[in-house]
């Protein structure tokens, strides 16, 4: 199971977001000279059956890929991750904790009725309402005033800090400064919802023939575990800039089956290449291979409470001797880059830190690591226990790590393959010694990665805690000075990483095959491509 299943919100720097307040539509610009095909139809694999097409219940990448085409929030992001206007024409921060969004008057639902500020108020209240049980309710809800309390059942949904000032003006209150608000609201969890339709059909409102949506596409067909089909939404306000007439999303989980469908012409978009085949396909289809890094980190959790690993010297030694360059170039060999920090390149709100030994020759690193182990009283032949979950990719990396620890430090690693949910349970309960882990950003801000190493955070499987760093993070969160915030966060990350709570290994890329006639594919840092930005070139 691949783990970039958590949602990635595109977000970009605040400056960019503010610059985009011009109210101009910036989508689906087909470069001059490109001839479009007569048949504008795309078939893309999303990797799994969507768990729901209700935007607030969508959690996985497949579901969010589809809801992002069906619905449009206040803003949206283009193929390069830039925030562009959506239903909102313009927005401004009127106080440190208040944002005002001006909605365009020509935004319509697929049934022709107008999209108004109250559709947003309804949608957002439904999102945080406990009865809805949205899996993302606390992830995004905490950024809106009273969102946290509503999700916990302590306040009614009507207390949420969102208000329709008039039909086309929406005011949003936040509990503290949220500089990335314009990119946050690009998420379809925060899209407007059609109250009349939901009231009428209940749970069935997401079915073809019933769903009313406001995005560039409208739901045409949904064969569960087989395909979802959407067609261009004629009521969409920017329909003249939508090129694709039809998109078919496939739920193929098996990577090899995905490639076979691609090769036989039934699929234009391979989600993920089978492990160990990148070089082959790069040679075979040089014009079709696409590979862009995105905000995701592959790392190994170290149980900081483990009798052996509670000694920082042991943790440091284990991290030092893993040669990330060989791991990236030879073992995984699909364009991923070495990582030495909890923050990956391209993340807003903090700088990427590194270790000074990262530049040392390996021999020196090994020598130092051996010294550390000796000081900690760890003898060669000591046993380590490593848990990972079923996947060729994870297996390869695990064998590599075990081999490094064995050949360089003389430590014996017992590898244990676990079913995914069993691994999750063990990790959350800290019932492991070393465990495979991975994280894909929920939104483009350092806080999404900081969660992995912060005291008592739900996402911290290492169970480490650095009180001093925690204070710096608190200080950074409260400030409205962006430069100061970034400096404090970076300092905190450096401090935490010097405790070696975990072993960062690689930054994710998205190696895939996309037919050369699919245009509009960019380099999106959240690996998120909307149908609105794509088109089919004549071929």
């Amino acid at each position, binding site marked *: 199971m691949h783990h970039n299943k958590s949602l990635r919100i595109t977000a970009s720097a605040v400056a960019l977001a503010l610059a985009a307040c011009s109210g101009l539509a910036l989508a689906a610009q087909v470069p001059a000279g490109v001839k479009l095909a007569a048949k504008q139809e795309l078939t893309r694999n999303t990797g799994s059956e969507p768990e729901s097409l209700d935007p607030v219940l969508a959690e996985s990448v497949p579901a969010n890929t589809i809801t992002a085409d069906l619905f449009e929030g206040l803003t949206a992001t283009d193929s390069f991750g830039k925030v562009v206007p959506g239903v909102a024409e313009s927005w401004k921060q009127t106080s440190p904790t208040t944002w005002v969004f001006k909605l365009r008057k020509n935004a319509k639902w697929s049934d022709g009725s107008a999209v108004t500020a109250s559709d947003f108020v309804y949608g957002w209240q439904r999102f945080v309402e406990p009865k809805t049980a949205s899996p993302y309710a606390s992830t995004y809800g905490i950024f809106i005033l009273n969102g946290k309390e509503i999700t916990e059942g302590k306040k009614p949904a009507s207390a949420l800090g969102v208000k329709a000032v008039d039909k086309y003006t929406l005011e949003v209150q936040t509990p503290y400064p949220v500089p990335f608000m314009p990119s946050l609201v690009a998420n379809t969890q925060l899209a407007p919802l059609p109250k009349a339709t939901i009231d009428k059909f209940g749970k069935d409102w997401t079915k073809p023939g019933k769903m009313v949506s406001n995005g560039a596409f409208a739901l045409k067909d949904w064969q569960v575990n087989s395909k979802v089909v959407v067609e261009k939404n004629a009521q969409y306000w920017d329909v003249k800039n939508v090129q694709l007439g039809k998109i078919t999303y496939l739920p193929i989980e098996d990577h090899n089956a995905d490639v076979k469908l691609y090769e036989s012409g039934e699929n234009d978009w391979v989600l993920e290449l089978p492990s160990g085949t990148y070089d082959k396909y790069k040679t075979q289809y040089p014009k079709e291979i696409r590979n862009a890094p995105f905000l995701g980190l592959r790392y190994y959790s170290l149980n900081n409470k483990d009798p052996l690993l509670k000694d920082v010297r042991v943790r440091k030694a284990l991290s030092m001797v893993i040669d990330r360059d060989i791991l990236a170039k030879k073992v995984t060999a699909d364009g991923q880059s070495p990582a030495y920090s909890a923050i990956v390149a391209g993340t807003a709100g903090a700088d990427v830190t590194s270790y000074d030994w990262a530049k040392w020759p390996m021999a020196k690193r090994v020598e130092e690591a051996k010294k550390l182990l000796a000081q900690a009283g760890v003898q060669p032949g000591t046993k380590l226990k490593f848990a990972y979950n079923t996947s*060729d990719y994870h297996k390869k990396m695990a064998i590599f790590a075990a081999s490094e620890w064995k050949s360089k430090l003389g430590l014996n690693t017992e590898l244990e393959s676990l079913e995914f949910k069993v691994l999750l349970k063990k990790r959350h309960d800290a019932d492991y010694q070393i465990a495979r882990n991975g994280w894909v950003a929920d939104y483009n801000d350092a806080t999404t990665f900081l969660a992995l190493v912060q005291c008592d955070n739900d996402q911290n499987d290492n169970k480490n805690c650095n009180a001093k760093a925690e204070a710096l993070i608190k200080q950074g969160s409260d400030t409205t000075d962006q430069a100061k915030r970034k400096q404090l966060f970076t300092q905190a990350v450096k401090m935490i990483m010097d405790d070696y709570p975990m072993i960062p290994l690689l930054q994710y890329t998205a190696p895939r095959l996309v037919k050369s006639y699919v245009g509009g594919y960019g380099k999106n840092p959240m690996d998120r491509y909307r149908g609105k930005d794509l088109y089919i070139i004549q071929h």
Partner: protein
Amino acid sequence: MMQSKQKAMTAALDNGLTDAAVEGRSLWRDARLRFFRNKAAVLSLIVLAFITLACVFGPMVLPHTYEDTDWDAMGISPTLVNTHWFGTDALGRDLLVRCLIGGRISLMVGALATIASVALGIVWGATAGFMGGKVDALMMRIVDMMYAVPYLLIAILMVTLLGRDFYLVVLTITVFSWMDMARVVRGQTLAIKSKEYVEAAHAIGVSTPKIIFRHIVPNLLGIVVIYTTVTVPGVILTESVLSFLGLGVQEPMTSWGVLIQDGAGVMDASPWILLFPAGMLSVTLYCANYIGDGLRDALDPKDR
């Protein structure tokens, strides 16, 4: 009328008893002779013996070990230089040694789990079929239930509660694989039960276990031998599923099932990683099939 029926039964019974008692010794010799007349079966036996010996002794004499990774020889195709005759896998480990080491596990698991599930299936099926009535109904409903319980859950639960152990693997595979044999054996038992000599034995008060083992089981041998060889591939491949769930062999140790699973993922890019283990497995399975057919022909009670 009564008398003539009685007579027919006694005659049939005599027949059955002489079959077992008088020809007892020569039966096996006959079978052996017939088996060695079957060319395909004999050839298969030789090949299977060779594969087994290679798996047992090969890793001891070959220049590479099954666990050593070589970052300068990753995923190389079969070659004479460097003595990687079968090439290497994605981590630069010698594929020949890994195929042989994997064979040890797969042959052992295959043999033990097959024997266990076949034995359980025969006893269960023959008992149910012979007893009939309520016993049959209860025993067969348990079989029905076993088909419905998702094996994934049982496997996960087994490893969680009992830990990881070779015999646990065999046990788990047996739990998943005995039902087919039980149903097949029961079906045949129903047919044999209605034959005259069994009815006769029953009528003169031969004990039930004795009837089952003396008269029913020998007549089941044909189908049992064939169905046993049908069971083998499933058993060997189930082991690789269990290893994913943490119950079967764990890296760097391997088995044919695991090697084939790995190879299938890269069959376009590096086909040899699939071809060698898959080839060894299928040759073994074909051998088992021909040996099974040969055994069946040899043991056929009517073909004398």
